[in-house]
Every structure is written in structure tokens, then in C-alpha cells.
């Protein structure tokens, strides 16, 4: 009881304090709120983006637990027999099998409003009733309804296609199939195709054809007669989805095993089908997805940590500064017999409501903002998914950041001597303290370097190391810079103040007084600024570094055509002979996984494989030999390469997997193809700065589904071996002639004189018309120039940077809040001093200018440190780009960036100090002097 009453007195002091200094409390509250909101918002955004990609994936592979589709190019028709679906349906543990067919269809030109040509679309024959179950997100309706089970000649079309056609629900549509087959369909529904992730994929739309969906019976009719020898009947399947009775991982693995066992059943068709198909398990897909989301995870971790640090810092300056100003009060409390614990408790009691209220409001605000974003950008987010883990961390982070912020003030408060009541300690901080703290700060900065470069024993992968660094290293780095701040003020403040004094025309001595004697407070003020500025600088420097890192060799062919799916030999020959194409250079860009010899470790990252004729290859990327097998020369390596079975590995790849020249590297394509790896000999280790990036961007289709770790270069034949999984053990199946490069994904070429991308595209359209007339499928292509590609890349970076800059703006908003408050607190705490200045004849205007001069000084020092800090962060980001994502970067510092940072800082400080300056000008001399 007594203890309770003792506590009550403490709470009384705290609450009246909060009420009396509500402005300060409000700033702290807003800081926590925004910090927590950012964490809650970013994590929710992350999980929503993840869900979107999941939905997108599901729209292709569905929610089935096992998805089977043919390996491309393995058989003549790239399809699975109906027989396989039937057999799988009979396996134990299988609840339902849903099949899907896919064929190229053509919508004749006369169906479009005007002036358009025949358009090739992907026609899906779906199992009405089953498809909705396994792939609901692939059938999101924008209008109309789904196919009726017994309604023939009904079709669903994609929204984009519906727009182009000018047709909607209820309209008729003529669709052509094989040869002269043709059908008249009624459009019953318009489909919404979910977009992928954060970035609009307009270019992807051009590569991936529009889709129409109809019943399997209707599709079969359209393709009647394609296999004259089989007569009418079911056409082969594009995919088989299996729903199991149990959805557990062991059940999926068991089903996988049983399906593979079907190959040994003695039936030749089944054996071929199983051998030539890829079986994907839902667990593997999720696994893959999470790996692909790493960059987002890292970013959201970074943003969360920085937001909370900033919030914590603002709370520190607001509450902590208050503690310093209240020395006499605290001393008095000690005189009347308040114990240290009581003092500490009263300080904590002030922070508790701020922590709780701020965290709750912040979570609400963050979720609200996330909801707003998902609704506003509904084309990028299918729905909002609240991350429970994120909320947990937002809550813990909010409270922890307050705890961190008040721990030092609380400690200092308990150290206040009762003597402070009679003699408030206003003695200047000795320079030696600045020096000591500054050195400690430098130590922390060094520690953060160490944390980045050292592999901690419990950290297994580079990714984990990056996450650890974001969580531990970044705060250490920030703290280091914070601690260095007073030292910087003490040393460069002198010079800077002259500049500032000159700018607003006041006596430097007056500024000096403030800047030097209140070094710590000044440092505290501009630290908030530093955080914002450094984020801004970091983003710009980082994005520019990436752009600069991607430099193309001078003689790279200016034009490219990308094919999806890959072209076979005869198709390629037709494309090579197009009139506007010169010096055609076929290339292959695929990804595969490296399998370490011991089968252990994290070998789930993909390796990019770029393939082409070796001599021409050097046009595309610069290759510098680092190590060659057996100490031979470059010429030897090139010869081996051309002979086949040999690769050049990039340095990152070699380092990542500890591979040396002469080793045999095993590659496999799919998650569960343990026995279908291809062994290729590493004849040389090369340095190819832009290779990963080049492949990544040329490999359009897989861009969003892969995270690469290093890359290798090989011949097209070898790339095809990997793609087709005909390695060790050699499969008996398939008419694959390995000396004949069948599949090509890309053609690089020089434009014929005076020709452009448009001309080449016209050539290809004409080629497609010819092919369709002959009953062949059309070629899906994406043609462009390297110039286009570069623009596309920079466009994408700008999109990402734009998003990040929005985050930086949040940080700036937080920071300017801190700056504004610190400036106001500065003026408030110096009311007496300012009143004395007024009393001895300074005008209001002069006083206001004095405050502005301080603002400018703070801005200049703040941006100086902010720029250094920002560049430091960018160097770190570049480091992770290289080690985690294989992106080449080149540190690029543009004067504009620096000017922008300084300008922004000055602006921010001026705006933040206008109110305090006016207030200072209005200072009532008598009131200020009376008030002790």
C-alpha cells in the first residue's frame, strides 16, 4: 500500500509533467507513431506483395499441390497424354486431377475494330468446374461469369484483349484454330490478369500473348485434324494439376515419388511422358517465392530499422533534452527526499503512455496506409495481407525504441545531484568528452565495417548475413554517426558558422555562442536531419551506382529479338533470313541450379547461363580470363569452349560455390530433378562485370522468378543440354540431337542500313502471317534495340527508386519533425538569453535572423555528415548488390546529388525554424527574465 502510494506520487509528477509539456510529448508520440506506422505499413506491404506474387503464380500453376507440365522442346508436341492424367487420378492419396490444354489460336483481323492484323493468342482448354478450384486467382472476373459446365462455344477473354477488340460480355467472337478450323464463340466473361509485384510489366505483356479460355471440348474442335493419324479425340494436355487428400509436405513428396514410379510401369507412353515432364510441388514453389522476395525482405527490414531508429532518436532529443533542462527540478526532488529509483520511475512513467499510445496509433496508421495503397494500386496488389510477424515487430519495435531513447535520460536523471537544485550545472562540456564520445562513435563505425565483412559463426548464408547486418550493423552504424556528431560540430562548426552568419548577415560571435557551447544540443538537432539526408543520398548514389555498373561493350549488336517460347532450328533459320536483319547472332539465356558435389548446403539459388558462339560472345560482355584450367592460354580455353561440354564461370560464381578451373559443375533445372543434372567442365574463371545483369535483363520471362548467384557462359548446345535435362545419367529418350542447337531464345543482330526496330517487327509479323497460312504456329517475339533495353532498365530502376524515395520522404518527414522540435526547444530554453539580447537593444528582426543563422549552420553541418553517412550506406548497399544479387555496381557521386542534399537540408531547417524564429522575435522581455 505504502509502496503503491509512493508510486502514485511519482506518477503524479510524471503526468503533470506530460500535461504541462504536451507539445514535447506530442512530438515524441508522433515520432513513435510514424516509426511504428512505417514498420507496420512496410511489413504489410511486403506480405501483400508476396501474396500478389503468390496469386500470380497460382494463376499459372494453381493451388494444386502437385503441378506437372512437359519440359519444353523435349517431345514433338510439348504435351502430356491424357493417359498420364488418368493414371495419376488412380493413385492413392489423390483427391482430384485437373487438366488443362493450351494451343495457339488466332483471332482474325476482321474481329478487331479497324486496321489491325490477325492476332495470335494462347487458347486454354479448361476443365470446367475443376479449374476454378485449383486456380481461382487465374479466373478473377472483371465482368460477366465463368464458363457454364454444359454451355458450348463460350469463351473467357482477358481484359486487355477485350479492350483491343472493343468487345465485351455477350458479344460474339470468331476464333481460328488449326488449318481452316474456325468457331464462333460468345464472350461470357472478361478476366482480370493479376500483375506481378510492384512494377508494371508492360513489356511482359508484349511477350506473353493474351489469353482466351474455353472448354476443352471446344479447344479440341478448333484443333481437329492436327494429328491426322490419331483421328478425332482428346488432344494432349498442357498441364496436370493434382489435389491430394492431405496437403502435407510428406504427402506431396510421396505423390511425387509415385508419379515418377509410373515411368517404370512398362508403358512406353507413360515412361516418355514422365521422363519429359517437370513435377513441381507446392512447397517448392513457396520456397522459391520466398527466395525471390529476398530483396523486398531486406529492404523492408532496412526501412523498419531506420524508421525506428529515427523515431527513437527524436524521442531521445525531445524527452532527453527535457531531462537536461529540468536539472534544477530534479535536484529539488532529490532535496525533498525523492530516491533515485523514484526519479527513474517518474521519468519512465512519462515515456510509458507515449510508447503505448504511439505504438497503437502507429499500427493503426500503418495498416490504414497499407490498405490505402493496396486499394489505390489495386493493379499491383491483389489484396492486403496483414503480416502478424510484422505487427509483432512493430509493437516490440515501438516500445523498444522508446525504451532505447529514454534509457540514457533516465540514467542521467538518477545521477542528478541534489546540489543541482541550488546550482544548476550549466558548465560547458569539455572538448575531451566530445573527443572521447567521437572516438567511441568511430569505433562503432569500424565495428559496423567488421560486422559486414565478417561471417559470424551462426550465420549460414549470405542472405542471413545481410539480414543480420540490416538488423544489427545498420543501427550500430547509425549510432556511430550520432556519436561522432558533437565532435564534428566542435571541429568544423567554427568554419561553418562564418558561412551561415554571412548568409543571414549576423555577427558570427553570436552564432558561435550557440553552436559551440551547445554543441551537443546542436549535434542532436542535426542528427535527425542527417538521417533524412543520408537516406536521400544513399538512394540516389546507390541507384546511380547500379546504372553505372551496367556498361555495355561498345560493339554489342544494337538490335535484339527475344523469343518465348524458344525457337527451334527451322524457325530460327526463317528469322535469320529476315530482310532487315544483318549479322544474326543466336543466343540462349536460361537459368539452372548448381548442385554441389556433396549435395549439401544452400544450393537453391539459380545460376544464369548465357550461351552463344564464343567469339561473338565477347561482343556481348567483356570477358577477362582470371584462371584457366591447367594454366593454358585464352586461345585454348576458347577452343575447349567451342568443342562443347565446357563453361566459363564468373568469379562470383566460382567464389559462391568454391569452384576452380578444371572442376566439373553439375547443373539441374527443376526443384525435384535430383537425377537429371548435367555435368559441365569449368575451363576458365572469367571476370565479366556486366554479365549477370545482362542475362538478367535479356532473360525477360524469368526475371521475376529467379534470384541469381553468379553466372556462367557456355555454348548453345550445352545450354540446351541443361534446359532439356539430358545429362547424367543420359536419358534414353527423345530424339534430341545434341550437335544440333535446337532451341534459341534470343537473336542479336545489326540493323540493315536505315532500318529500325519497327521494320524488324513488321518483318516478323509478315513471317507469322505466312506461317499461320501454312498451318504452323506463330512465333511470339519481343523485338527491340539495345537502346530500348537500356531505357527499359533505367525505367525500372526509376520505378523502384521512386518507391524508395517515397520511403525516404517519410524518413525526411520524421526527421524534419525532430529538427523542428529541437529548434523550438532550443529557442524556448534560451528565452532568458534572448530576452537579455532584446533588453540590451537587439531588434526582433535581428533576433529572428540569429535563430535563422543557427538553422543554416545546423543544416550545413547536418548535410555534410548526412552526405558522408549516405555515401557510406550506399557503399554498403553496393556491397550487398554484388554479393547477394550479383549486380555489378560502380560508386557514382554526382555533384547534383550533393547540391540537392544540401539544398534540401537548408530548406528543411529554415522551414523548421521559421516558427521558433518568430517566437524568439516576440519574446516578451519581462516575462522571460522573470521566469526562472
Amino acid at each position: 500500500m505504502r509502496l503503491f502510494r509512493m508510486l502514485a506520487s511519482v506518477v503524479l509528477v510524471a503526468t503533470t509533467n506530460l500535461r504541462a509539456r504536451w507539445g514535447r510529448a506530442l512530438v515524441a508520440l508522433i515520432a513513435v507513431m510514424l516509426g511504428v506506422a512505417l514498420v507496420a505499413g512496410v511489413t504489410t506491404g511486403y506480405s501483400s506483395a508476396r501474396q500478389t506474387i503468390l496469386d500470380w503464380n497460382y494463376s499459372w500453376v494453381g493451388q494444386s499441390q502437385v503441378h506437372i507440365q512437359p519440359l519444353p522442346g523435349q517431345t514433338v508436341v510439348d504435351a502430356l497424354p491424357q493417359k498420364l492424367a488418368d493414371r495419376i487420378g488412380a493413385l492413392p492419396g489423390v483427391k482430384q486431377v485437373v487438366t488443362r490444354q493450351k494451343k495457339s489460336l488466332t483471332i482474325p483481323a476482321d474481329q478487331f475494330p479497324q486496321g489491325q492484323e490477325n492476332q495470335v493468342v494462347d487458347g486454354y482448354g479448361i476443365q470446367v468446374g475443376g479449374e476454378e478450384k485449383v486456380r481461382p486467382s487465374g479466373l478473377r472476373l472483371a465482368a460477366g461469369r465463368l464458363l457454364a459446365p454444359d454451355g458450348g462455344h463460350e469463351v473467357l477473354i482477358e481484359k486487355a484483349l477485350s479492350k483491343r477488340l472493343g468487345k465485351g460480355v455477350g458479344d460474339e467472337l470468331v476464333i481460328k484454330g488449326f488449318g481452316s478450323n474456325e468457331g464462333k464463340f460468345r464472350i461470357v466473361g472478361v478476366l482480370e490478369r493479376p500483375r506481378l509485384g510492384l512494377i508494371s510489366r508492360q513489356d511482359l505483356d508484349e511477350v506473353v500473348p493474351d489469353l482466351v479460355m474455353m472448354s476443352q471440348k471446344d479447344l479440341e474442335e478448333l484443333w481437329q485434324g492436327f494429328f491426322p493419324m490419331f483421328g478425332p479425340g482428346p488432344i494432349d494436355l498442357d498441364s496436370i494439376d493434382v489435389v491430394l487428400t492431405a496437403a502435407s509436405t510428406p504427402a506431396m513428396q510421396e505423390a511425387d515419388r509415385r508419379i515418377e514410379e509410373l515411368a517404370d510401369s512398362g508403358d512406353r507412353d507413360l515412361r516418355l511422358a514422365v521422363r519429359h515432364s517437370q513435377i513441381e510441388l507446392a512447397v517448392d514453389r513457396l520456397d522459391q517465392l520466398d527466395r525471390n522476395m529476398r530483396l523486398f525482405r531486406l529492404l523492408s527490414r532496412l526501412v523498419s530499422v531506420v524508421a525506428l531508429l529515427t523515431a527513437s532518436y527524436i524521442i531521445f532529443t525531445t524527452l532527453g533534452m527535457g531531462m537536461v533542462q529540468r536539472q534544477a527540478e530534479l535536484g529539488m526532488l532529490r532535496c525533498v527526499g525523492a530516491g533515485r529509483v523514484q526519479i527513474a520511475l517518474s521519468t519512465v512513467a512519462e515515456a510509458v503512455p507515449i510508447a503505448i499510445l504511439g505504438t497503437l496509433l502507429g499500427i493503426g496508421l500503418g495498416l490504414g496506409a497499407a490498405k490505402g495503397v493496396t486499394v489505390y494500386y489495386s493493379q499491383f496488389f491483389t489484396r492486403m495481407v496483414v503480416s502478424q510477424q510484422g505487427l509483432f515487430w512493430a509493437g516490440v519495435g515501438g516500445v523498444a525504441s522508446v525504451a532505447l531513447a529514454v534509457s540514457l535520460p533516465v540514467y542521467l536523471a538518477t545521477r542528478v545531484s541534489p546540489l543541482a537544485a541550488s546550482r544548476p550545472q550549466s558548465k560547458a562540456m569539455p572538448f575531451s568528452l566530445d573527443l572521447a564520445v567521437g572516438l567511441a562513435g568511430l569505433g562503432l563505425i569500424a565495428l559496423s565495417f567488421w560486422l559486414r565483412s565478417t561471417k559470424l559463426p551462426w550465420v549460414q548464408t549470405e542472405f542471413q548475413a545481410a539480414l543480420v547486418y540490416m538488423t544489427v550493423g545498420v543501427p550500430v552504424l547509425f549510432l556511430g554517426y550520432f556519436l561522432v556528431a558533437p565532435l564534428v560540430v566542435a571541429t568544423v562548426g567554427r568554419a561553418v558558422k562564418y558561412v551561415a552568419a554571412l548568409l543571414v548577415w549576423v555577427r558570427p560571435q553570436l552564432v558561435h555562442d550557440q553552436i559551440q557551447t551547445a554543441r551537443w544540443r546542436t549535434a542532436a538537432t542535426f542528427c535527425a536531419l542527417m538521417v533524412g539526408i543520408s537516406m536521400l543520398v544513399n538512394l540516389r548514389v546507390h541507384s546511380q551506382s547500379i546504372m553505372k555498373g551496367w556498361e555495355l561493350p561498345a560493339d554489342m549488336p544494337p538490335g535484339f529479338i527475344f523469343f518465348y517460347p524458344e525457337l527451334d532450328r527451322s524457325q530460327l533459320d526463317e528469322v535469320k533470313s529476315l530482310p532487315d536483319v544483318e549479322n544474326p547472332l543466336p543466343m540462349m539465356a536460361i537459368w539452372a541450379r548448381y548442385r554441389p558435389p556433396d549435395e549439401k548446403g544452400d544450393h537453391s539459388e539459380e545460376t544464369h547461363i548465357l550461351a552463344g558462339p564464343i567469339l561473338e560472345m565477347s561482343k556481348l560482355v567483356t570477358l577477362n580470363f582470371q584462371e584457366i584450367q591447367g594454366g593454358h592460354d585464352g586461345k585454348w580455353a576458347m577452343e575447349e569452349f567451342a568443342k562443347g561440354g565446357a563453361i566459363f564461370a564468373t568469379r562470383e560464381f566460382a567464389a559462391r560455390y568454391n569452384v576452380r578451373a578444371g572442376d566439373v559443375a553439375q547443373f539441374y533445372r527443376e526443384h525435384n530433378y535430383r537425377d537429371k543434372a548435367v555435368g559441365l567442365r569449368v575451363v576458365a574463371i572469367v571476370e565479366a562485370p556486366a554479365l549477370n545483369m545482362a542475362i538478367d535483363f535479356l532473360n525477360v520471362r524469368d526475371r521475376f522468378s529467379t534470384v541469381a548467384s553468379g553466372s556462367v557462359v557456355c555454348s548453345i548446345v550445352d545450354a540446351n543440354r541443361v534446359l532439356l535435362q539430358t545429362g547424367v545419367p543420359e536419358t534414353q529418350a527423345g530424339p534430341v540431337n545434341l550437335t544440333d542447337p535446337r532451341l534459341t531464345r534470343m537473336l542479336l543482330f545489326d540493323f540493315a542500313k536505315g532500318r529500325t526496330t519497327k521494320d524488324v517487327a513488321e518483318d516478323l509479323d509478315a513471317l507469322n502471317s505466312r506461317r499461320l497460312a501454312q498451318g504452323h504456329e506463330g512465333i511470339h517475339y519481343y523485338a527491340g534495340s539495345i537502346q530500348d533495353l537500356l531505357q527499359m532498365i533505367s525505367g525500372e530502376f526509376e520505378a523502384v527508386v521512386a518507391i524508395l524515395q517515397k520511403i525516404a520522404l517519410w524518413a525526411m518527414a520524421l526527421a524534419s519533425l525532430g529538427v523542428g522540435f529541437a529548434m523550438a526547444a532550443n529557442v524556448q530554453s534560451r528565452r532568458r538569453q534572448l530576452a537579455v539580447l532584446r533588453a540590451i537593444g537587439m531588434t526582433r528582426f535581428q533576433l529572428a535572423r540569429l535563430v535563422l543563422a543557427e538553422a543554416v549552420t545546423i543544416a550545413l553541418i547536418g548535410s555534410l555528415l548526412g552526405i558522408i553517412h549516405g555515401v557510406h550506406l550506399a557503399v554498403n548497399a553496393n556491397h550487398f548488390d554484388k554479393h547477394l544479387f550479383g549486380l555489378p555496381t560502380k560508386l557514382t557521386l554526382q555533384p547534383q546529388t550533393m547540391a540537392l542534399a544540401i539544398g534540401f537540408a537548408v530548406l528543411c531547417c529554415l522551414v523548421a525554424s521559421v516558427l521558433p524564429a518568430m517566437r524568439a522575435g516576440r519574446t516578451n522581455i519581462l516575462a522571460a527574465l522573470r521566469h526562472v
Partner: protein
Amino acid sequence: MPHPYWRGRLISEKILHIENLVKVYGSGSTAVRALDGVNLEVHSGRFVAVMGSSGSGKSTLLHMIGGLDRPSGGHIHIRGQEITSLSDSQLTLFRRRHLGIIFQSFNLLPMLTAEQNIALPLMLDGRPKREVRARVAELMDICRLTHRADHLPDALSGGEQQRVAIARALMNEPALLLADEPTGNLDSSTAEAILAFLRRLVSDMNKTVVMVTHEPKAAALSDVLVVLRDGCIIERADLDGSGDTAKVIAHYNRDM
């Protein structure tokens, strides 16, 4: 009518006993011997005035007695309790229970009302609300502050603020009331009222007060005059508390 406390005056107890008190600030060549072997005895119900020129060690002496700072040597006994050997938390408790301290700048907590400021020491001690309320009412009555109970310090005059500070110092019925230039910030008429009030505390309520002052007029109201110079007591004179300023000045000047 005599105040209920008047009987206490009959028993004169030794409240404060200082032996060979030394305080050295700093070290080496910059060391300052603020107190250099002070011996002093104060009995209950006495009003002691400490005088001395600026820098003579008056405040330092008061801080030592109040346990606000630690001496470099010597002993201080308050009501028989040796305080120099107490730990920090014991000292805090001792201050809370047995001492009242008043400063030149009134040092009220600006966000608490007059009433709350006064109540603070007992609240910190966790006393029952009823007891605290009764005591506050009594003291506000004594200090004539009843009509100002709910005002914040900002709204009070200097004299009122100092009275609040005194009331706060009296809350715990201290054995010893320490005052460092309590009237330094006040105009002369307000100062006189405060001094008269302190005098009454001693005469009528048997409080013991040690007051540092520069004003001979203030010192003249005391029972004992102590004069410090360079950290040593150079004069200890019994006055009669009659307010005879000339006597004080005579004592003070004798040694200057």
C-alpha cells in the same frame, strides 16, 4: 494563546553537532579549501544565522549539513545520527524524514500546483492520503496560502513562492530547517515577512533553523550568529533575536 508546539521549547536537545568539517574542491594546485575545520553545535529551538563574505564557504557548509554533498573530512551528527557515513539511499531517506531545505531561487516544480508542491515530500514517502491532506491544510494555514492552493508557481508572487517552498520544507516536521539566502530574491518588505515567519517558526513552534544570509537585518533576528571566513568559523555569538542590527554589524566587522 500559545501554539500547541510551545511545550517542546522546554527540552533543549542537541540537534546538530559538527566536528572538524573539511571540504576541499578539486585537487592539486587548483584545490579550494571551502571548509577548513568547522566545529559547530546547534540546539533545538535555535535560529542560527551564518554570515560571511562571498566565497567564504557558507553554502558549502549548508550543503554538507543537508547531505547534498559529501565532506572531505570530519563528522556531522544530526539528532545523534552521523550522516557522513550514510549511503546515498540512506541519506535520501534521512533528508526525506528529518530535513527541510529552502533555496534562494524557490525551486518549485512548475507543473505542480502550490498544494501539490507542498504535499510532495510526504507523497514521495508514501504516507496515507488523509495524513498528507491534513498536514498540507495545516501548513497552508500557517503559511497563509490557503487561497492559493490550486495555483501554479507561475501565478504566484515571489513571496508566495517562497512560502510554498517553506511549507514544503516543513511538511515532514524536520528536525532542522536549512535555508540558503531565502530572501535573496525578494524585495525588502516581502523579505521581512518571510524572516518574521521563520522567526515565528523557531519561537512558537520550536523549529531549528540554520540560515545563510548577507543581510545584517536578517541575521539580527537570529539567536546565534556564526561568521565564516575562508572556511573557518571566526565568530560565534549569541544574540537575543531582538532584531538589533547594530550588534550584528559589530560582531561581523570585528573580524573582517
